[in-house]
């Protein structure tokens, strides 16, 4: 039994060790630096990473040991887990000590105890009638909370400052555990919507979904509709806000929320948060018969190739052909205030393939078409008829966020308490001397900023001596 107790004690001592905390912090620093030196998967595109691996053999080994995703590696998780345990033990220990300190700090001291304090002095008063009041008055002016028991005085300032350190550690614990909880219960999905299009929150409608192992699927029958997209949105004050999507959230056929989402302006509804992401163009292509009737057609997504062109490849229904489109949204350049472009006179460079064989290539303006052959007895045309935007909105459900930010705010408060509310205590004892005079023995201490406290203590003594001199002269 004693062995088990000893083992528990040793484990507790190990985990609440401050040396362990320092070692773990140094390890966190080392791993974080490694993550800034070794290229990380989350920073570069997959293609870029593959190219780098071809050029640098060492990256392949780094990849094998998980160092190319070091912040989600078992090594980092392991260190963080140990750090979390260490923080929880330290927090518990510190809280216990702080509470003990708070409970024991109200005790009075006699002369013998006071003169052992690092800051101590004695002042003689010839007239003892008001000596107590003078000490109390001076200490109160210095914002001390003063208690008196007969000839003994105890004064304390910033008493609750002792709680700053445990509170800060509690916040670290809260932030780390909230990040862990948020990461495991988080869901993030991306919906690609053309203007006017609606998509549901069902999995098949997302083009990207990431769910943590603890995420619980709870569909709320929501539908997201992109009502309008503006790449150069101006807010009510006339400030450019960049790409913005006007989103309607529909539930059971009713619009429950409608708002514009853009950078620094989110939509929050029923635990989910919506962010503006990428955007691009959706040209409309129609297959028509001789009389102009539409056989088939749709808006297609064209992706930005980062050179001002947008690319799309799609099958042309019922013809067996594949269309490869390069869209130029601004052939007549219109520049808005602030250097932004707006689409004007868009054109497409259209290539049609029958298998590998190129059967047509040429440029089409809006409402232009090309005859591409016969379907049955009719000659059909394929043309470019409209241009809309598409927008990607990110839908995030992260239950850890309020706790993480709550932990942030609380930790800032706790740092403030920890360092700017240094607890100071002053004790005084009035002793009657044989010659009939009264001597005030006064001493004090502070947990932090001892030099500043020494200055303050000296001022208190000077003021006390000044009071005595006033008495003497009176």
């Amino acid at each position, binding site marked *: 039994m004693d062995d088990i107790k000893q083992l528990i004690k040793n484990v507790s001592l190990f985990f609440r060790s*401050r040396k362990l*905390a*320092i070692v773990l*912090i*140094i390890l*966190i*620093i080392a791993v*974080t*630096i490694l*993550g*800034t030196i070794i290229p*990380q998967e*989350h*920073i570069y595109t997959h293609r870029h990473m593959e190219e780098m691996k071809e050029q640098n053999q060492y990256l392949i080994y780094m990849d094998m040991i998980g160092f190319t995703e070091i*912040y989600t590696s078992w090594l980092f998780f392991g260190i963080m887990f140990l750090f979390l345990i260490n923080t929880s033990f330290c927090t518990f220990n510190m809280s216990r000590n702080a509470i003990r300190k708070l409970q024991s700090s109200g005790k009075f001291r006699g002369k013998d105890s006071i003169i052992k304090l690092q800051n101590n002095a004695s002042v003689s008063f010839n007239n003892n009638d008001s000596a107590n009041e003078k000490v109390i008055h001076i200490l109160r002016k210095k914002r001390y909370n003063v208690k008196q028991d007969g000839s003994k005085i105890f004064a304390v300032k910033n008493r609750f400052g002792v709680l700053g*350190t445990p509170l800060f550690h509690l916040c670290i614990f809260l932030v780390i555990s909230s*990040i862990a909880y948020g990461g495991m219960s988080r869901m*993030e999905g991306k919906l690609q919507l053309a203007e006017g299009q609606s998509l549901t929150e069902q999995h098949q409608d997302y083009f990207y979904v990431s769910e943590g192992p603890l995420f619980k699927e709870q569909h709320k029958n929501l539908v997201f509709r992109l009502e309008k997209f503006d790449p150069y949105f101006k807010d009510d004050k006339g*400030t*450019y*806000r*960049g*790409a913005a999507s006007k989103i309607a959230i529909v539930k059971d056929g009713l619009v429950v929320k409608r708002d514009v989402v*853009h*950078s*620094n*302006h*989110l939509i929050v509804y029923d635990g989910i*948060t919506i*962010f503006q*992401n990428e955007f691009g163009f959706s040209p409309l292509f129609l297959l028509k018969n001789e009389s102009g009737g539409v056989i088939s057609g749709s808006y297609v997504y064209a992706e930005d190739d980062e050179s001002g062109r947008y690319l799309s490849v799609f099958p042309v229904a019922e013809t067996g052909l594949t269309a490869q489109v390069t869209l130029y949204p601004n052939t007549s350049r219109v520049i808005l205030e*602030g*250097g932004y472009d707006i689409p004007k006179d868009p054109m497409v460079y259209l290539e049609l393939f029958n298998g590998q064989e190129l059967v047509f290539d040429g440029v089409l303006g809006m409402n232009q078409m090309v005859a591409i052959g016969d379907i049955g007895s009719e000659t059909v045309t394929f043309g470019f008829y409209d241009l809309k935007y598409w927008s990607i909105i*990110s839908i*995030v459900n992260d239950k850890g*966020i309020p706790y*993480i*930010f709550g932990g*942030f*705010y609380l*930790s*800032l408060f706790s*740092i*403030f308490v920890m*360092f*700017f509310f240094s607890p100071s205590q002053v004790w005084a004892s009035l002793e009657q001397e044989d010659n009939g005079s009264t001597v005030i023995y006064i001493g004090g201490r502070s947990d*932090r*900023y*001892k*030099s*500043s406290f020494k200055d303050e203590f000296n001022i208190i003594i000077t003021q006390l001596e000044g009071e005595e001199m006033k008495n003497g002269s009176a």
Partner: protein
Amino acid sequence: MGQLEWVLYLTASSLYAISAVWYILSVAFKKEKWLRHGAISAALGILPHSLALYIRWVESGHGPYMTMHEVFSSYAWVSVAVFLLAIVKIKKVRIAGLVVMPIIFIMMGIGATLSTEIMEIPPSLSSFWLIAHVGFAKLTFGSILIGTGLAVIYLLKERKKPGSESMVQFLNRFPEKNILDELSYQFVTAGFLFLSVMIAAGAIWAYQTWGRYWAWDPIESWSLIAWLVYGIYLHQRLNAGWKGKKTAWLLVFAIFVLVFSLFGTGIVYEGLHTAYMV
């Protein structure tokens, strides 16, 4: 950059240089009263500097945090402002000018060599949280620079073999070592609080802009590293009883981490902040 702004910038730089020279001369020739001249030159320098920043702010329509020129200039301005406020409040701090003002002059010099072109602010940066983020970054640097300056003075006083007897006497006129140590601790503590606010504001801004509060971007990682290094400093002071020489050396090391985090990462790494490091 307009001609007036440039003239004001150069005037401020010159006055900061004069201030740095006064501080250095005061130690070299053991003239304590020259420290006052140094402080006055710094105070005179901040006037044209403020005007130059104001003109740029009006011209660009945004705060001085888009280009590296603006970054260096505004960091220097905040550091001088914090230093001047500190010496008004606590006279003992003025000796830190020996370290602070030469660094300010170097920052202004670097700022002068960088592109002074005005950049438009992208919509993602139009956020209250960004202003809080960069504002507290500047306050962090200003406070910690003074704290480190005091730590360097501490180390000068601590030297086992002082240059001469008169130098010892001169250094003895400045605050006691324990007071320097404690003042340094107080400035670094304030800097740590500002650094924490900077990181928290940055995380909130990133969440509102991109939907995530932390992406392990190199500049985020280095700000965390700087925070942890100063965390070690405070931890060791509070819990392990470290003070004096040990903590002074730790601060000298830590300022390099902070400087790299604030100025170096945007140059060395590709990431979120790289686009504006011109």
